[in-house]
């Protein structure tokens, strides 16, 4: 039964990757990265049980957390970029 979930997760990861490659906007790509991250968390949780080593769930937890920080870093990047662009525009005028 774990296999079903694993396959579904893997396929979804593939679909998310396609979305990341297609874009079109950068936000779509960030969305795809985020989605891939959460799917990886699910995948690892399931595989930890598939392998019979539930003590490896720590990894899934770490992934979840890293993923969140990654997305926020991207947002901060957007924000500071917007500020810089505004400032440059202001400086030009």
């Amino acid at each position, binding site marked *: 039964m774990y296999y079903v979930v694993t396959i579904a997760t893997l396929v979804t990861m593939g679909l998310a990757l396609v979305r990341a490659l297609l874009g079109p906007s950068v936000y779509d790509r960030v969305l795809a990265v985020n989605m891939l991250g959460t*799917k990886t968390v699910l995948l690892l949780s399931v595989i930890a049980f598939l392998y019979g080593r539930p003590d490896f769930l720590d990894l899934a937890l770490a992934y979840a957390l890293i993923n969140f920080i990654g997305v926020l870093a991207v947002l901060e990047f957007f924000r500071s970029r917007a500020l810089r662009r505004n400032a440059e525009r202001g400086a030009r005028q």
Partner: protein
Amino acid sequence: MSALLDTLSWVLLTLGGLSVLIGGIGALRMPDLYTRMHAASVTDSLGAILVLGGIMLQAGWSLATIKLFAILLFLLLTSPTSSYALASAALLAGQRPFADASQDGEGPE
């Protein structure tokens, strides 16, 4: 009892897999950023609940369940937060939802 739990967890896992998959298809097929985000984020949360819940039933009462619960809690907190933040960033940057996209195209990249 154990057979009941087993069946229940299988059902949860299957439903979870299904909803994850639907989310994936939605994220690929929906027409614009916000609808894609909608598809992705809703199924993210639902899928996580179902799949992790299913595994929890399999794991029984152990340390693993506590860890799974922590992961679930974490996902339920962060996943909607990221979606919200992403949507707000996109909106502030001038990406228009699909409804008004007819006027100004796909919006700037």
